[in-house]
């Protein structure tokens, strides 16, 4: 081993120790999903019970409900988080006033950087009994609506606020791709008599297709990711039937009720499915969009 190699090993050491302690060691804890874990006996001495917890998950209504809610919320978010930023980027691209354009861009990125704890607090207050929503409803003579407590609207509320929080940030990639489309193409289309709509349809959109394909493929890994931070900070007992997702279910079963094995099994289900989906999406992205992160 030469001296450079030794130096390289020393350089990567702190990072890999960190990775080992907080990512790799917890992976050994997956064994809890296959045993009747008791904290006294520890990971390696608790009684093995095979697939008991997974079979159990298949029959408890709460777990099924969480899976269904997760899929509905996550898939809606995946689709809308690709489409809405695309529309926004196209609209912004038509703006010729640079000050206005820059100003809008700066403002719409902002919510991305504010935590869900803060936003959930603000949203709860705005939609609550003393918030602006009910103030306006009162003015038009409508009775009080406590939106955050109505299960029939809760999923839409989650999806809507998530798309609102992220559309500006998600549009950054589209806007970068738009600057890559050659102005010559627009000029040629205009000379050939193409209308504004035709230019958008035949020049802009085709120019964005590689980006859209890439984002769609990579988003596949998110179909079980309904957004723990958002749901955890916005849901309450009254909207459980439509708002409870796998991650919040795992939290309640594991951290609140301390049923460690059952919660680990539910979490493992999510991790494994997500892993398979993400790897598939990366392989596909690599194949179709020439995308390579490493």
């Amino acid at each position, binding site marked *: 081993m030469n001296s*450079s190699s030794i*130096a*390289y090993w020393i*350089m990567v050491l*702190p*990072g*890999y120790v*960190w*990775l080992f*302690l*907080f*990512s*790799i*060691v*917890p*992976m050994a*804890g*997956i064994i809890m999903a296959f045993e009747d874990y008791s904290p006294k006996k520890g990971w390696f001495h608790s009684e093995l019970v095979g697939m008991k917890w997974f079979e159990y998950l298949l029959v408890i209504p709460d777990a099924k409900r969480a899976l269904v809610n997760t899929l509905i919320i996550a898939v809606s978010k995946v689709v809308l988080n690709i489409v809405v930023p695309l529309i926004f980027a196209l*609209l912004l691209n*038509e*703006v010729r006033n640079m000050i206005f354009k820059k100003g809008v861009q700066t403002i*719409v*990125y902002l*919510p991305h*950087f*504010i*935590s869900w*704890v*803060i*936003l959930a607090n603000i949203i709860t*207050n*705005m939609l*609550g009994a*003393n918030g*602006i929503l009910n103030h306006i409803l009162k003015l038009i003579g409508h009775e009080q609506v406590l939106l955050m407590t109505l299960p029939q609207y809760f999923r839409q509320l989650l999806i809507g606020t998530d798309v*609102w929080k992220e559309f500006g*940030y998600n549009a950054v*990639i589209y806007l*970068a*791709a738009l600057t890559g489309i050659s102005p010559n193409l627009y*000029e040629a289309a*205009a000379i050939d008599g193409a209308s*504004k709509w035709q230019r958008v349809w035949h020049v802009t959109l085709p120019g964005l297709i590689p980006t859209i394909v890439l984002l769609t493929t990579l988003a596949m890994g998110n179909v079980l990711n309904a957004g723990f*931070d958002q749901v955890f*900070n916005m*849901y*309450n007992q*009254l909207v459980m039937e439509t708002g409870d997702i796998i991650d919040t279910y*795992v939290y309640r079963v*594991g*951290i609140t009720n301390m049923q460690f094995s059952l*919660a*680990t099994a539910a*979490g*493992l289900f*999510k991790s494994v499915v997500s*892993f398979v989906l993400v*790897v598939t999406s990366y392989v596909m992205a690599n194949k179709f969009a020439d995308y390579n*992160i*490493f």
Partner: protein
Amino acid sequence: MIEGKTPGAKVFKGINYIILSVLAFSCLYPLWYTFCVSISSKAAAEGGLVTFYPIGPNVQAYKLIMEDLTFWNSFRISVERVILGTIWSMLAMIMMAYPLSKTTRVWKPRGVLMWILVFCMLFNGGTIPWFITVKNYGLIDTMAALVFAGSVPVFNVLLIMNFFRNLPQDLEDAARVDGAGPWRILWQIVVPCSKPIIATIILFVSVGYWNEYFQGLVLMNKAENYPLQTYIRQISVQIPVGVTLTAEQYAQLAQNSNKSLEAAKVFISMVPMLIVYPFLQKYFVTGITVGAVKE
């Protein structure tokens, strides 16, 4: 480009400006609303009268916060956490990224190390095994938990690594010929040439630490150890999950808290974010488009 002068084009332009203005307004309004509630009179805030401007403006809520030691204690914990966490993770990530930016031909272990890293990014043991691990390390109620427990932000390491890879190789070769070793090359050549990406990642990481509340919630048993975001979560109107309340009781619960004080706390917790935001948005556009858009 030839601009449309037809009436249709004008209408479109008008509507477009309106839509974009509304969108931008929707992103600012919740912050403005919170600020208005925080400086409105307690009665106006609790009666739900605040809309677009403060009613009965006063700084009572902010005066109350000044004396609130629990709030400032959590604020201090968050500041400490951001400083320690950012320094530690930047050092660890830069030192990981540099050897990994070498080809496998130059440094053979790169292949295996890379696989481990990417595997850890794509797969995790889940919340419960992670929680039990951290607990077994004895990190409950320590600052160390708030700094380390989040594990390595692998994606950031990859971003830094990709940036290092694209630096001209000649720079390093020249330094090596002059007798510089790997440490000197990293800190005196590679890092100074990578300011854009390092600035982006510093901002991402520090905002990440500032906004993190979950570890504070599950790893801190005592409320006096809560970072600010966890503190805010706990004072927010929460229906304890597991207790069934009717919609009326829920409304009652919301009525009982001091709205303007709560809004003031929420607003102050956003201030550090709003201060770094102008710098943040200057850098992050390059940061997140690296590797995503192919020329």
